[in-house]
């Protein structure tokens, strides 16, 4: 297996890393969209997160990574991160007739697809804006219901499919439909570091990694372990964290001020804030947590205002500033 660039060694890109940590801490936040120019390390970061995540307990041989039931042998497997590559055909995504068995043994059997393998994990879509429409619709359905229903080729199968979608892409190459945008919990924009010293550091680390992946990874082992432990601890703490009323009010106020569509924005905002509090080891979700995650939770849900040319991120920040003054 190809060694991935260590998550802890990524220079800068704080908003993106934080969003990925939040998504890893609380699945219900709903997934991350990473948009940015080519060469900004989006794919690197998302794949790096995979290597970071702690293993899960699954029933031995379960095609969709189900938690072991009473009496079943449990195995520890890495958190599934499944790539949805460009050009994937629907049969591979949802699962289909096992072609080999049908041809060689004349048996009808279900071969699980990518959605099965992604259950309890992450589904990563590179170049998400190039995804074919029918696959988009399919993913939306499954993401909403948490279940994959397969009716094809004489098969009738349903299985759990709960996963976090992480998509990366370049906004120059095509817009995403609003329905798909809204499905993502958090969105982040990344660009090349502006600071020359940072750019030099990125290049140096990248170079060092390419020349000696093993050595480089080993040097970052401790930092990686620290990241992993932080996420594990945060997951454990999540249920204990209280969200006081004034934090809830702050979130509601912000969403109202921005005219963010629907309740999903508010829910995401609160969940993300709570996950951030958990990652920081705080016992309560505070207003400052809400403010910190506001741009990533809301920038992709704002209705376009034809009279307002400002970018979405700027609008969120402006609303935050106005609230602070009030």
């Amino acid at each position, binding site marked *: 297996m*190809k060694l991935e660039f260590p998550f*802890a060694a990524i*220079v*800068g890109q*704080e908003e993106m*890393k934080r969003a990925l940590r939040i998504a890893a801490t609380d699945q219900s936040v709903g997934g991350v969209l990473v948009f940015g*120019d*080519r*060469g*900004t390390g989006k*794919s690197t970061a998302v794949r790096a997160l995979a290597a970071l995540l702690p293993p899960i307990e699954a029933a031995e041989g379960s095609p969709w990574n189900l938690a072991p039931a009473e009496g079943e042998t449990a195995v520890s497997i890495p958190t599934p991160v499944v*790539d*949805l*590559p*460009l*050009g*994937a*055909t629907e*049969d*591979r*995504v949802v699962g*289909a*007739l*096992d*072609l*080999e068995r049908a*041809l*060689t043994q004349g048996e009808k059997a279900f*071969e699980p697809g*990518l959605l099965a393998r992604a259950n309890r994990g992450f589904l990563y879509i*590179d*170049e998400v804006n*190039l995804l074919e429409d029918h696959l988009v619709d399919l993913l939306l359905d499954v993401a909403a219901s948490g279940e994959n229903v397969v009716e094809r080729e004489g098969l009738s199968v349903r299985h759990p499919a709960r996963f976090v979608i992480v998509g990366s892409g*370049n906004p*120059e*190459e*095509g817009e995403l439909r609003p329905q798909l945008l809204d499905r993502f919990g958090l969105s982040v924009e990344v660009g*090349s570091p502006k*600071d*020359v*010293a*940072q*750019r*030099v*550091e*990125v*290049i*140096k680390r*990248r*170079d*060092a990694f390419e*020349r000696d992946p093993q050595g*480089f990874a080993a*040097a*970052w082992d*401790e*930092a990686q372990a*620290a*990241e992993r432990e*932080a996420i594990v601890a945060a997951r454990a703490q999540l249920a204990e964290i209280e969200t006081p009323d004034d934090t809830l009010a702050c979130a509601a106020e912000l969403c109202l001020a921005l005219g963010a569509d629907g309740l999903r924005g508010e829910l995401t905002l609160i969940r993300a804030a709570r996950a951030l509090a958990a990652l920081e080891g705080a016992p309560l979700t505070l207003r400052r947590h809400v403010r910190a995650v506001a741009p990533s939770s809301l920038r992709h849900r704002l209705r376009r205002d034809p009279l307002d040319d400002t970018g979405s991120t700027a609008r969120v920040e402006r609303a935050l500033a106005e609230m602070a003054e009030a």
Partner: protein
Amino acid sequence: MSPRDELALPGPAAPDPPAGPDPEEVWADAALAAALLAVDPGLGGALLRARPGPARDAGCALHAGLSPKAAPLRRLPAAISEDRLLGGLDLAATLSARRPVWSPGLLAEADGGAVVLPMAERAAPGLIAQLGAALDHGQIRAERDGRAAVAPARFAVVALDEGAEPDERAPAALADRLAFRLVLDGLPRAAIPARPLDDAPASAEEIAEARERLADMPSPPELAEAMVRAAEALGVDGLRAPLLASRCARAAAALLGAEAPGEIEAALAARLVLSPRATRLPAPPPEETAEQEQTPPPEPPQETDDAPEAETPPSETRDAALEDKVLEAAAAALPPDLLARLAAEATRRPAAQSGAG
């Protein structure tokens, strides 16, 4: 008689915006780029802007001829189906063998060699994304027709941009990943050798030797830093360009028989890789004056504390002489259309366009 002497590297192009580049130098650069690509296909490839004709044919012949004999060369048809590109079920073979038989896609077939993409300016986004993924990861992942297949696909891309208008260009997502950009349009017949391979900067044997030397070629941190700063000064976006430029310098050192990439190789790489991507004349970076004193080391991300022992703060790895040489070489070879555009804008802009110190 070292390869260095034989190569007779051309000097930097004359810095006069109105005159076009010297056709012989353009060809020499194209030939050099082909040789460097043969030494290190990890440089991604080359973008040749040229309509079909003798210049383009000669360019392609050079790329094909300098690669190792056994290396596959595949031409991507303009409208290629995903099946043919990524591989898919071979229906006839499957039915006759009574078990699934898959044919590898064209990209997997090109592993270890090169892919030629004509009409690059019209390539579909899906195709560009697949090529980009293969260039980034060196493999193709296909989930199609009942099978998951991961196939190695390490190849260089020679993209032929046939655009006529200035805004008809090969997609940036592809161009960004290819080290070299060459404009062969308008080259007079006289500048194109009748037998490109005979005049090539290096023979196939020399290239093979250079490939061996490349494995042990050091990668000095000053080199990377100089490239990043030069790219910054020239307004080159993204981080791939400086990475490719560093890589190119190492390939040049291997080709020239040098122990390590030095000023000559760095200047060459800057000229070939950075100059074509420049978007402005070099201006001193904003913090240049403050950097007379200590340059603060870069902050590693706050939440992690451990940095690998190999880290050095930039003030120890900066080589000012190298940086100057690199920037000078790159600035001297800026593309003519950029210079023309900047000259036209000169009346609107304030005058601070001094060369970097």
